[in-house]
Every structure is written in structure tokens, then in C-alpha cells.
């Protein structure tokens, strides 16, 4: 039995591994941070819970990406021809499916970019191909991971019923960060609700005129690295003063950006450099973002903090993070308002309810309306067609959210609305 006693010696040696003094302090600190966060989450829970799948966790309420469940193939089919962007390009759900296998839910929305102008560069095709492959690959790998987990769970005495209680859900989708006549910036993301270890996000910003992918150098100039680093370091200091802990450089924290750093373009037209969870700070802080070139304005904050900050700032108006965060009541109310506007053919009210640019899809060609005046100039007869009036009159039933928005109307014509800049607004009218 030489091996066994040797094993005991090995165990003793293992137990002699010295415990650093700071361990307990660090653990305690994390627990305190979460305790605080959790209290907030519980408060939010009442408002957000309706869109969470079944008994999904309270923790899920503080995830950056909400879990939306209303994607079905039939619905996606209707969404396919709902362009939601302005004049030069549109991004649309190219393929969407959801399936459930062994109580593992999978829901995938793969976007595709379409340039309205003729394209010679091949960039759009390449980006679309890459997006497609990324999404499919993530979905497959996530599914395999979940199945492996399931198998292990069942092999070790777990029952199917207990497994079903886990409510494993895998999501792949996209989110538009900003869009102007010049740029289109969006992210592709994937997540699994049982482990954040594989959460992934990739950002794309396209120059619509040049039909190229935009780099930080294009936006900030030759000195982009120095400019971004300086801005980030300043913002880090400010946040540290507010109690945020970043990893030090020795701990693997922020050591400067590179040409490959992730970024998107926000509504202000500024690049926002994004660090994934754990990249430069404890995971408790989630995804961390720095807006570059906005020193005089309120800082972008971590995604989760932004959410709260903005809401505090506009007390009288609810701020929605995305389409999934809107209460059904508010959706119904907004739909009712649209129906009323169309019935009364109230151009002014319509112009106030739109978020620009507004996509107007007509049989004889589509246009993008950038201002209120432009919309009013189109005239009552162009906008409030008899077909639209009829469609709005008949439109009813519960509207389900998707990343692209809510569609009011069964088929054509229809009106698409959704959240932009935290508010509900009309984004497209299709005839």
C-alpha cells in the first residue's frame, strides 16, 4: 500500500500551501459588492420579470443582455422585410430560429447587412459571411456545452424533471449601437444563462459611403492609441474615486489599447471602447465601456450603471434598455396611440412620435426620412393611405418584442416601433 500512504503525504503537502493574508479581504469585498447589487436587482425584479424565462434567476435581471423569448420562426419571417435603418444600408434578420432540445432552449437571430448602393468592395459580403459563421459556430458550441452538462447531470443521479428546472437558455443575436447616414455600428452577441464563461460579443462599425470597416485610427487619427489611452486612464481615475476597483497592470488590468480593441460608435458619434467582463476589472462590474471624446459630458459608465444613471436623470420618463425591457402595458398604450394618430391623420402628432431616421418602405421604392419637417413635407395623402388606415384599424392582439422592435399590423402595411435612446418611437412604416 505504498501508494496510499504516499497519497496521504501528498495531501499533507497540499494542505501546507500557504494562504495569502489578503484572500479573506478580497473575498469579503466581492461578497459585499454583490450584496449591494443584489438588493438593487431585487428592486428591479418586479418591473423586469415578465420577460424572463420561467424561473430564471434574479441575477439574470442584472445581465447586460436580457433574455427574450418570443422569437419563433413564423414571427421572424414577418420581420425579414422590416428594414429599420436609414438611407444607405439596412440590417435585417437574415435567419432566425429557435428550438428546444432536452429542455435546452436555443434562440438565434443572425443579422445581415445590406447596402442599398451598389457595392464593389466585397466588404459587406465578407462581413455577412463572418457574422453568419460566428453565430452558427457559437450556437453549436453552446448547445454542445449545455448537452454535455445535461448528460453529466443525468449520469450523476439528476432527474429529467430537475434538469428541466435549470431552464438552460442559449441566445445569439445582434444589437444596433448607432446608425447615421455615414456609419452603421452594431454588435453580435451570444450568451448562455448558466455560465458567463463563454459570453461573447463582437462589434462592427461600417463606413456606409466608403463601404469599409471603420477602425479606431479612422475615427481618432494617427495618435488614436495615445488619445484613447489617455481618455481611458482619466475616466478610470474618476470611476475609482467613485469606488470602482480596476485590476492593476500587474494583475492583468488595463495596459493600453491596441488596434484590435473592441469598440462601437454611439449615438453621439463617439467611439466607445469596450472591455469584456473580467478583462480589466473584477467580473462584478460586468462589461466596461469608455466613451472617447466625451470628456465634458456624463461618462458612459459600465453598461449596467448607465442604465441606472440615466433613469435617475429623467425621473418623469421611463428609460428602457431595449425592446425587451418595455412593459406590455406601455407597448399596448403606444400601439393605441399610433392607431389614434392614423385614424385622426394627425401629421404633427405622428412627427412627434417618430424617432429619426424613419424608414418609409413603399412599393415604388424606399426612403429614409431624417427630420420632422421632411416627414411633414411628404404630406397627409402619402403617409395616411387608405390601406394604412385600414391596417391600423384592424391591428390588435398582443405585440411581442424582438430586437428589431414591435410590428403593428398583420402583414402589409404595418408600422414598426421600438426603443431608441431609451424611449419608444416609430421606426418604420411599410406600405
Amino acid at each position, binding site marked *: 500500500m505504498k501508494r496510499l500512504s*504516499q497519497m496521504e503525504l501528498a495531501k499533507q503537502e497540499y494542505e501546507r*500551501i500557504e494562504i495569502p493574508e489578503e484572500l479573506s479581504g478580497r473575498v*469579503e469585498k466581492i*461578497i459585499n459588492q*454583490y*450584496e449591494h447589487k443584489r438588493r438593487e436587482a431585487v428592486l428591479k425584479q418586479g418591473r423586469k420579470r415578465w420577460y424572463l424565462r420561467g*424561473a430564471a434567476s434574479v441575477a439574470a435581471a442584472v445581465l447586460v443582455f436580457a433574455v427574450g423569448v418570443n422569437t419563433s420562426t413564423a414571427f421572424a419571417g414577418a420581420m425579414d422585410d422590416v428594414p429599420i435603418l436609414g438611407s444607405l444600408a439596412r440590417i435585417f434578420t437574415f435567419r432566425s430560429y429557435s428550438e428546444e432540445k432536452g429542455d435546452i432552449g436555443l434562440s438565434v437571430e443572425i443579422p445581415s447587412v445590406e447596402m442599398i448602393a451598389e457595392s464593389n468592395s466585397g466588404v459587406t459580403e465578407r462581413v455577412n459571411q463572418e457574422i453568419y459563421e460566428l453565430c452558427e459556430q457559437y450556437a453549436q458550441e453552446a448547445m454542445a456545452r449545455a448537452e454535455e452538462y445535461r448528460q453529466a447531470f443525468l449520469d450523476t443521479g439528476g432527474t429529467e424533471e430537475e434538469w428541466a428546472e435549470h431552464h438552460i437558455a442559449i441566445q445569439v443575436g445582434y444589437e444596433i449601437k448607432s446608425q447615421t447616414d455615414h456609419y452603421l455600428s452594431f454588435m453580435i452577441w451570444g450568451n448562455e444563462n448558466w*455560465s458567463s464563461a463563454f459570453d461573447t460579443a463582437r462589434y462592427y462599425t461600417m463606413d456606409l459611403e466608403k463601404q469599409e470597416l471603420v477602425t479606431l485610427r479612422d475615427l481618432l487619427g494617427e495618435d488614436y492609441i495615445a488619445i484613447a489611452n489617455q481618455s481611458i486612464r482619466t475616466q478610470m481615475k474618476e470611476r475609482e474615486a467613485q469606488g470602482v476597483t480596476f485590476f492593476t497592470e500587474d494583475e492583468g488590468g488595463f495596459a493600453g489599447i491596441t488596434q484590435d480593441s473592441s469598440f462601437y460608435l454611439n449615438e453621439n458619434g463617439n467611439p466607445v471602447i469596450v472591455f469584456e467582463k473580467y478583462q480589466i476589472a473584477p467580473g462584478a462590474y460586468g462589461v466596461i465601456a469608455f466613451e472617447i471624446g466625451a470628456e465634458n459630458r456624463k461618462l458612459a459608465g459600465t453598461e449596467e450603471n448607465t442604465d441606472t444613471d440615466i433613469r435617475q436623470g429623467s425621473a418623469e420618463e421611463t428609460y428602457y434598455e431595449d425592446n425587451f425591457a418595455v412593459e406590455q402595458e406601455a407597448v399596448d398604450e403606444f400601439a393605441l396611440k399610433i392607431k389614434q394618430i392614423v385614424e385622426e391623420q394627425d401629421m404633427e402628432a405622428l412627427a412627434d412620435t417618430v424617432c429619426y431616421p424613419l424608414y418609409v418602405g413603399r412599393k415604388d421604392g424606399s426612403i429614409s426620412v431624417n427630420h420632422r419637417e421632411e416627414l411633414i413635407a411628404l404630406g397627409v395623402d402619402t403617409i395616411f393611405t387608405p390601406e394604412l388606415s385600414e391596417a391600423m384599424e384592424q391591428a390588435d392582439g398582443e405585440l411581442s418584442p424582438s430586437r428589431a422592435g414591435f410590428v403593428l399590423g398583420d402583414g402589409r402595411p404595418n408600422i414598426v416601433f421600438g426603443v431608441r435612446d431609451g424611449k419608444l418611437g416609430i421606426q418604420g412604416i411599410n406600405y
Partner: protein
Amino acid sequence: MRGYGEGSSACYDGLTEYVVENQNKFYRLAFSFVRSREDALDVVQNAVCKALSHYGTLRNKDAIRTWFYRILVNESLLFLKKRKEELLPEDNEMIENISYYEKGYELQDNLYSQINCLPSDIQMIIKLRYYEEFSLNEIAVVMGMNLNTLKSKLYRGLKLLKQTMEEE
């Protein structure tokens, strides 16, 4: 909406209690893999963060131990993988040699060091089994492995160890 409210609160409290009580064990396991004090602290910290943000997936208070170790083990292995990827190809080879049971590292001839030279998944299984005294079923959950694969890995590991110890 089952699972909200008291049930998950109990899980949360149980979890923080468990973490505080067992943090030294977490550290030892992490350290025995990453072999650097700072890195081990990071691994434990990340694992605790993950556990706290996902405690909602913990349905059963009795499963805390396997549930938490699953996260800790993933964090440790992930860390090793990342570190390996970050190194240059030459260094890479070097690490490979160290962790995959090569001569030159056998200078320390006791079983403890031998275990640390095994491939990382086998290492993990042996440490959980003999240092932390997990049952095979529990290890299967922790490693997300089926029981037969687990057993064959464990026996392969023990055989490797036995061989070297006999060669001494």
C-alpha cells in the same frame, strides 16, 4: 415564477456562507494549478464573482459544493489555457513539457510533485478525489464528464503515477 423569493434567498445566503468557510480550500486548489500566488487569488476571485452572479442557477442548497467547484475548476482550467495561448510558441513548448509529465521535472520525486505534472484534467480529478475527498459521482458533476470517462481518466492517472513511483 417558482424559485424567486425565499428559496433563492436561502441559496444565496448558503452560498456566501459556503464561500467564506471554504475560501482556503479554493485557494489551494487554484494555486496547485496556476502556481502563482497572484494568479491563484485572481482565479478564486473570478470564481466567486461568477458564482455570486449566477447563484440563480443554483436550485438546490445541498448542491452548493459541486456547483461551486464546477465554476472554480472551469476558472482554473480556463486560466491555464489562456496563459498557454498568451505565451510565445517556444515558451509554449516549455510549459507543455512541464505540465505534461516530462523528465527534468521529476527531480522532486514525491507523489505530490508527480501529481502536479499530470495533464491538467487528470490532475484535477486526482486532487478532487484524494485531497478534497469528493466522491466519483460528485467529480463527474464538477468536471461535466460522464462517469465512465471519469473513471478511465482517474485510472490512467493512477497508473502513470504508479509507474513513476516504481521507477524511483
